[in-house]
């Protein structure tokens, strides 16, 4: 354990315990409060009419026939709100000259993707509202769709936003070191320059709870309460204030129980904004609930990149340089951090490796498709996929074992802290330990033997071994770093600790959970820090009225940033209580020791006060020390000094049936290092769940469009979210290398599984087929694609 970790007050009784979660009670009994479950008096239901075309001009729209339908109170088109609806914000202008076209909540003149909202109906119930949509009269003049990223950049391509004169959103370039020199050296010395193109298909995040919003106005006071299935109640309030003109203090945003997010509820969405405008216009509460089909059209998609990779290395396999050129699909509009997602990956392409030079560039492109934005991992899974695929490919080219190639190039544990070529400082890590443990659990040598045997006998079922050794950056991010990247927000988190007279504790956090288990893990931290029972701690979050300040939950930041704020606030409570305890015990502050919930006079341990006694005495305030206010409550705002860098070694054995193309994951070993663990049960849950999502990208999921730009994966019948039989059992283990940049030594684990798993699975499939001449299979690696890859390579070699 590091010195820092020991600095946590009190003995660690709760931290590290496998606590079953507090939040489960209401979730397993149905006593939940999802946004769609909220009822308020006089509630009206809103339904949204969406464009059936990918790209068209609206030549006529008449909502009035909808008003004749039973139960309908109002109907509006974009024109009705043209003056007040503003533009949905993008907080990340990644370059100074980035093109940022308007993103009106309701389209006014033109629709730019199938699913773009064009009108709303407000009725007494959801059936009437949905029925009345079909009465709206609307004429479209079709415009050409823009679907292919490279064609979109060609001269004369049809334009998504004709005013821009181009489909290019931005060009971002980040060179580090002299890549050309690294490349020249590789060539001069008989090394290798390897080029690859990898494709990141679009994904539909598929949180099981679709989005929903309820807006309750107090019209006379100009006040609004907005309940939303959102990850970001605090940011949402700010964005609503900035776009609707309702002053911030007149908006209360509540995120009730939220059924998963994975980045897809990290936005100000059109429907949230429109619901507020409608509630304001009508002076009535309004609810909108997304159907799954709407969710697939109108909630952001993830990934969507072409990755051109060039690796320069010596003949012996030492990495000299890496060049990454991306084309990234923005979709039709820029949502909150659309253009920045590839940049979150920019720092991660070098992964765990040392090299002399790195050159990253990315071109953002508009298409007539659903906007993209952050989806679990946001940029980092893409980066990890490319570098880990490339390492396996390079090992093959050089005839080196892929584990050995990685060993040769990774940052050794004694080299931390390490300044990477991409400009990050990795504070800690031990790739050797995690990898050795993974190899041991996996039985690497034995599987390699079996692989050779199957190849020798031409077994129709071939065995492949896939490797992915990743690191990632969590805790997005130190505010100054975000500033230097032109991001329009900070990276701190807020906490406040309220000591109730009976010794119970209320903890306000600015993080906003939606499945992660913050109530449990944060209670464990507080229980240790204050020496109070776990059950005496209650978390308050997700309501701007009771947790007024915060930056919410994404980027695996809640523990690594929010948890530290809580730790610091607890420390301040103890310092205040120490003064009161000293007074009560008639000793000097400096003679008071605190541990396990009790203040004792140094050298006279029988002279003691529990924290509960001190809290009550402070509440009564009959006998306070001179000049000390009668309150132990404290708050803290923590801004991290660095990212945290979890890492892990994932190994996959896949059996690929060369006759059917079917892949069966035979074993999956994941050894992850997320630093100090607060609750192993929760960590393991995050790891397995994350792996399932990353594996789904590798094997099952893809957002697909037809030639007209219609989403053809627009329902859960067409988009293959894996079910229980589609996901293998995962063997998990952990190494624990504490972060040195925060007092808990924690790193974050929310996205790690997703980041590590995708390349491990695809590498395994390719490894099974290399001897047949296959060196790539596009994701998702469906049986058909795998089968075709085998056929094509055998045709090529024939």
């Amino acid at each position: 354990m590091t010195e820092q970790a020991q600095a946590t007050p009190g003995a660690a009784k709760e931290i590290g315990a496998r606590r079953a979660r507090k939040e489960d009670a209401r979730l397993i009994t149905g006593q939940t409060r999802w946004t769609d479950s909220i009822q308020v008096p006089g509630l009206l239901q809103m339904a949204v009419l969406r464009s059936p075309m990918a790209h068209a001009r609206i030549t006529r729209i008449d909502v009035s026939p909808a008003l004749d339908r039973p139960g309908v109170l109002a109907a509006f088109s974009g024109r009705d709100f043209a003056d007040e609806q503003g533009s949905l914000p993008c907080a990340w202008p990644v370059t100074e000259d980035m093109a940022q076209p308007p993103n009106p909540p309701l389209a006014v003149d033109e629709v730019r993707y199938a699913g773009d909202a064009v009108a709303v109906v407000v009725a007494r119930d959801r059936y009437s509202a949905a029925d009345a949509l079909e009465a709206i009269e609307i004429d479209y003049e079709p415009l050409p769709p823009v679907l292919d990223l490279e064609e979109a950049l060609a001269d004369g391509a049809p334009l998504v936003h004709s005013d821009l004169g181009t489909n290019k959103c931005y060009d971002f370039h980040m060179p580090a070191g002299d890549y050309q020199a690294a490349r020249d050296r590789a060539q001069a010395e008989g090394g290798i320059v390897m080029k690859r193109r990898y494709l990141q298909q679009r994904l539909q995040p598929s949180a099981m709870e679709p989005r929903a919003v309820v807006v309750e106005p107090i019209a006379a006071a100009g006040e609004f309460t907005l309940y939303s299935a959102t990850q970001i109640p605090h940011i949402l309030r700010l964005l609503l204030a900035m776009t609707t003109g309702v002053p911030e203090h007149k908006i209360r945003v509540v995120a009730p129980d939220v059924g998963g997010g994975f980045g897809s509820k990290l936005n100000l969405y059109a429907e949230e904004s429109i619901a507020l405008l409608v509630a304001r216009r009508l002076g009535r509460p309004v609810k909108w609930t997304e159907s799954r089909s709407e969710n697939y059209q109108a909630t952001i998609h993830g990934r969507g990149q072409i990755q051109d990779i060039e690796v320069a290395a010596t003949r012996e396999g030492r990495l000299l340089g890496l060049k990454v050129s991306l084309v990234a699909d923005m979709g039709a509009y820029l949502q909150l951090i659309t253009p920045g997602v590839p940049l979150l990956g920019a720092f991660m392409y070098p992964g765990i490796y040392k090299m002399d030079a790195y050159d990253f560039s990315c071109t953002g492109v508009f298409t007539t498709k659903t906007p993209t934005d952050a989806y679990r991992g946001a940029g980092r899974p893409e980066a990890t996929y490319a570098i880990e695929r490339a390492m396996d490919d390079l090992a093959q080219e050089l005839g080196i074992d892929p584990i050995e190639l990685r060993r040769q190039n990774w940052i050794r544990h004694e080299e931390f802290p390490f300044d990477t070529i991409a400009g990050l400082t990795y504070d800690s890590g031990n790739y050797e330990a995690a990898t050795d443990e993974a190899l041991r659990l996996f039985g690497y040598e034995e599987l390699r033997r079996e692989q050779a045997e199957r190849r020798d006998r031409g077994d129709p079922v071939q065995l492949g071994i896939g490797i992915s050794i990743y690191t990632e950056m969590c805790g997005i991010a130190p505010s100054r770093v975000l500033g230097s990247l032109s991001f329009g927000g900070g990276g701190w988190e807020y906490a406040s600790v309220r000591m109730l007279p009976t010794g119970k504790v209320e903890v306000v956090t600015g993080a906003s959970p939606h499945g992660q288990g913050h109530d449990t893990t944060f209670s464990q931290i507080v229980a240790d820090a204050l020496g109070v029972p776990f059950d005496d701690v209650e978390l308050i979050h997700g309501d701007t009225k009771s947790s007024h300040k915060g930056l919410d939950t994404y980027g695996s930041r809640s523990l690594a940033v929010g948890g530290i704020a809580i730790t610091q606030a607890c420390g301040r409570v103890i310092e205040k209580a120490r003064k009161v305890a000293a007074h009560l015990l008639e000793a000097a502050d400096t003679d008071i020791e605190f541990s396990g919930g009790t203040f004792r006079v140094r050298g006279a341990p029988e002279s003691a006060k529990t924290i509960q006694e001190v809290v009550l005495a402070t509440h009564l305030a009959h006998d306070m020390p001179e000049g000390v206010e009668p309150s132990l409550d404290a708050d803290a705002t923590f801004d991290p000094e660095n990212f945290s860098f979890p890492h892990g070694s994932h190994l996959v054995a896949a059996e690929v049936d060369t006759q059917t193309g079917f892949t069966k994951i035979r074993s999956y070993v994941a050894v992850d290092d997320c630093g100090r663990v607060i609750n192993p049960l929760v960590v393991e849950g995050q790891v397995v769940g994350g792996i399932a999502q990353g594996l789904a990208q590798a094997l099952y999921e893809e957002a697909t469009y037809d030639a007209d730009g219609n989403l053809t994966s627009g329902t859960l019948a067409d988009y293959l979210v894996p079910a229980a039989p589609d996901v293998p059992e995962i063997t998990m283990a952990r190494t624990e290398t504490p972060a040195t940049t925060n007092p808990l030594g924690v790193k974050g684990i929310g996205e790690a599984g997703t980041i590590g798993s995708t390349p491990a699975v695809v590498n395994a499939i390719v490894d099974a087929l290399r001897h047949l001449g296959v060196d790539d299979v596009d994701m998702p690696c469906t049986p058909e694609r795998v089968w075709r890859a085998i056929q094509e390579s055998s045709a090529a070699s024939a």
Partner: protein
Amino acid sequence: MPRISVKVDGVTYDDDVEPRLLLVHYLRDWLGKVGTPIGCDTTNCGACTVLMDGSSVKSCSVLAVQADGSEVTTIEGLAADGQMHPMQKSFHEEHALQCGYCTPGMILAATDLLRDNPNPSDDEIRDGLEGNLCRCTGYQNIVRAVRRAAAEMTESAAATDPKEARV
């Protein structure tokens, strides 16, 4: 409008409903039984699963009128006499939920699974829950929870079943 009489979690309700009203909307919007959530519009996700006369059904694929005369158990009525059902307990103990949105349906589908097969293998559990999607957990802990509940339920059945009792 047809009149229906449905017993939901032990209480009988009589209502005149539109023929097209889905059972899940009847539960949620009419009866305030909002413990049963909706996750899709193509009957794929299973979030809306309830027990109808003891068998699990996706309540988004049943019309309210089809439930006339039947007895429906939702997640809100699963605990009996203030005691959580063993499946609820084991979901908690095995950390078989994260956001919890799939959980009501998953728990009810799993109880139905054990009714047909009181001692399923892991593969049988996975296959049996194929109609219920979870985006958070990766299913591993759900499988464990069902296994654990199966063991507990077999044990307690053995303890109360006189035929099994040892003399």
